[in-house]
C-alpha cells in the first residue's frame, strides 16, 4: 500500500457559490487587469508634471493634458497615476502577503509537527514579534535598510508573518494526531513529505482565509506607511501615498484624495467580502 492511497484531504461539504461573491471577485480581477496593462491604458506618463495645471478639477484641460479625473498638486494626471498606482499597491500587498504567508506557514507547520525545541523556539520568536508594536518595527527596519519599494515589502512581511505562523501551528497540531498522518509516519514517510503532502493541503483552507484578510490589511498598511513617510519613494504613485498626500488638499482639491481613497476602499472591501465568504464555506459549523 502506498502512502498516497491514504492521502485523504478532508473536504468541507460544499455550498452552492453565493452570487454576491462574484461581484467582489470581478472588481479584483478588473483591478489586476488594469494594473498589468497599465502602460497601455494609462493616457499619460504618471510622473509627467505640469506646474501650470496644478490641482485642476476632473474634466479640465491644461496644455497637452486632458484630466479625466483631475490633476494633483504637481499637475500630474490623476487617472494615469491611479492606474499605475494599482500596480504598486497590488504588487506590494500580494508579494508581502505571499512572503509572510510562506515564512509563517512553514515555521508554524514545523513548530506544530516537530514539537520539542523547534516548537518552543518558533513560538517564542512569534511572541516576541507580536509584542513589538508594528509601527516600531516598521520605522526601525526602514531606518536600517533604507526606504524603497522592496523594503516596504520586507517591512510588511516582517510584521505579519507571526499571524500565519500561529494559525498554521494551531491547525497542524490538530491534524498531526489524526490516524492517517500517524499511519503515514509508520509507513516510513519522512517529515518533509508528511508536511507537504498531508498536512499542508488540510490546513490550506484556514490559511487562505487568513491570507485574504491579510491581503486587505497589507493594502491598508502600505497606506499607513506612506502617511508616516516610510512608504514608496516619490514620485512613484501608489494609492496609499496618493491618499496620504491628498488628504492635505481635501478643502480645495478633493479629487486628489477621493479617487485613490475610493479605489483603496473598493479593493479592501472586495477582499474582505471574499475572505468572509471563504470563511463561511470552510466553516463546518454553518452546515
Amino acid at each position, binding site marked *: 500500500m502506498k502512502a498516497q492511497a491514504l492521502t485523504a484531504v478532508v473536504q468541507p461539504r460544499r455550498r452552492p457559490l453565493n452570487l*454576491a461573491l462574484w461581484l467582489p471577485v470581478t472588481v479584483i480581477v478588473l483591478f489586476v487587469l488594469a494594473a498589468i496593462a497599465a502602460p497601455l491604458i494609462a493616457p499619460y506618463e504618471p510622473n509627467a508634471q505640469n506646474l501650470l495645471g496644478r490641482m485642476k478639477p476632473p474634466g479640465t484641460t491644461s496644455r497637452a493634458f486632458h484630466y479625466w479625473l483631475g490633476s494633483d498638486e504637481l499637475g500630474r494626471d490623476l487617472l494615469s497615476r491611479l492606474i499605475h498606482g494599482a500596480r504598486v499597491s497590488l504588487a506590494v500587498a500580494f508579494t508581502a502577503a505571499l512572503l509572510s504567508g510562506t515564512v509563517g506557514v512553514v515555521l508554524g507547520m514545523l513548530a506544530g509537527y516537530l514539537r520539542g525545541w523547534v516548537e518552543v523556539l518558533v513560538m517564542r520568536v512569534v511572541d*516576541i514579534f*507580536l*509584542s*513589538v*508594536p*508594528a*509601527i*516600531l518595527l516598521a*520605522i*526601525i527596519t526602514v*531606518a*536600517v535598510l533604507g526606504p524603497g519599494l522592496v523594503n516596504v515589502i520586507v517591512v510588511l512581511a516582517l510584521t505579519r508573518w507571526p499571524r500565519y505562523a500561529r494559525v498554521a501551528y494551531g491547525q497542524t497540531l490538530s491534524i498531526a494526531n489524526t490516524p492517517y498522518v500517524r499511519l503515514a509516519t509508520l509507513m516510513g514517510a519522512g517529515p518533509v513529505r508528511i508536511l507537504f503532502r498531508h498536512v499542508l493541503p488540510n490546513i490550506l483552507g484556514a490559511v487562505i482565509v487568513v491570507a485574504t484578510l491579510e491581503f*486587505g490589511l497589507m493594502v*491598508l498598511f502600505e*497606506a*499607513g506607511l506612506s*502617511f*508616516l513617510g516610510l512608504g514608496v519613494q516619490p514620485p512613484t504613485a501608489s494609492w*496609499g501615498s496618493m*491618499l*496620504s498626500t491628498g*488628504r492635505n488638499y*481635501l*478643502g480645495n482639491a478633493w479629487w486628489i*484624495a477621493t479617487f485613490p*481613497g475610493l479605489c*483603496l*476602499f473598493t479593493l*479592501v*472591501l472586495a477582499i*474582505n*467580502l471574499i475572505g*468572509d465568504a471563504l470563511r463561511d464555506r470552510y*466553516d463546518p*459549523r*454553518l452546515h
Partner: protein
Amino acid sequence: MITLIFFVQRLTGDPTFLLVPETATQADIDALRNTLGLDRPLFVQYLSFLQQIASFDLGRSVVQNVPVSTIIASRLPYTLQLAAGALTVACGLGIPVGIVLALYRQSAAARMLAGLVFAAQSMPTFWSGIMLIMLFAVTLGWLPPSSVGGFENLIMPSVALGLLSMATFARITRTAILDELTRDYVRSARARGARTGRLLVRHLARNAAIPVITVAAIEISNLLAGAVIVETVFAWPGLGQVTVQSILSRDFMVVQGVVLMGAFVTIALNLLADILYSAVDPRIRLDGVRR
C-alpha cells in the same frame, strides 16, 4: 528582545544631529555627544542600561531632559482613555451587530449590515479620521476637531479607531453565537418553547463570551498598536505618538521604556484573558489550559 531593540536602534544613528542648530561645527557635535554619553563604546552603554533596568530606572530622555517614566506616566492615561473609548465603540457596535447577524443571517437587512461593517474596516484611519474632522468639526461644528479636553474630544478618535475592530468583534460574536445555537441544550430549550431573547441573555451570552474575551485581549493590543495614526491625526497625546516621535528623534531611552512597558502589558493582558476565561467557564481550569 530588549537587547535587540537596544542595538538595532543605535545602528540607525544618534539624536545629536537633531538637537544642535544647523550652524554647529563638528567640535560642537562631538562635545554634545560626549556630554550625553553617546560616544561611549556600545557595550559600555548596554551594561549601564541593564544596570538601570535592574533598579527600575528607565533612564532619561535626551530630547526632553526628563526621566522616561515621567513621559510615560503623563501619556499613559490618554492612551488608556482612547483604548477604552475605542473598545466601547468596537464592542458596543460590534457585539450587537454580531448577534443580529447570527440570529437573522438569512435576511437581506443582515447582509447589508454585514456589508456596512466590512466597509468600516476598509478605510485607512488617517483618511476616515480627517473625514470625520471635516464633517463633524469644521462643517457641522458639533465636536472639537482635535486634542484632549472634555468627553466630547474623545468621541471622534474612539470612533475612528474603534471602527476597525468592530468587524472583528461582530464576526467573532456571530461565530460564537452560531456555535452555541447548534448545541443540544439550545435545541431542547427551544423545544420547550423558550423564546430566543430569553435564551440569549441567560445562556448564550455567557457561553459565547469565552471566545469574545479571548479576542478582546488580542484586539486591545491591536488597538494600542494601531492608535499611532489616529493619535497623530487627532493630536491625541498617547503613547503611540510619543513612540513614533521618539524613534524619529532617536530618543532611545524613551523607545526602550515604551517597548518594555508594552511587553509587560501584553503579558498581563494574556494572563487576564486566561483568568477571565477560567472564571466564566468553570469547566476550564488554569492549569489545564493549553496554549
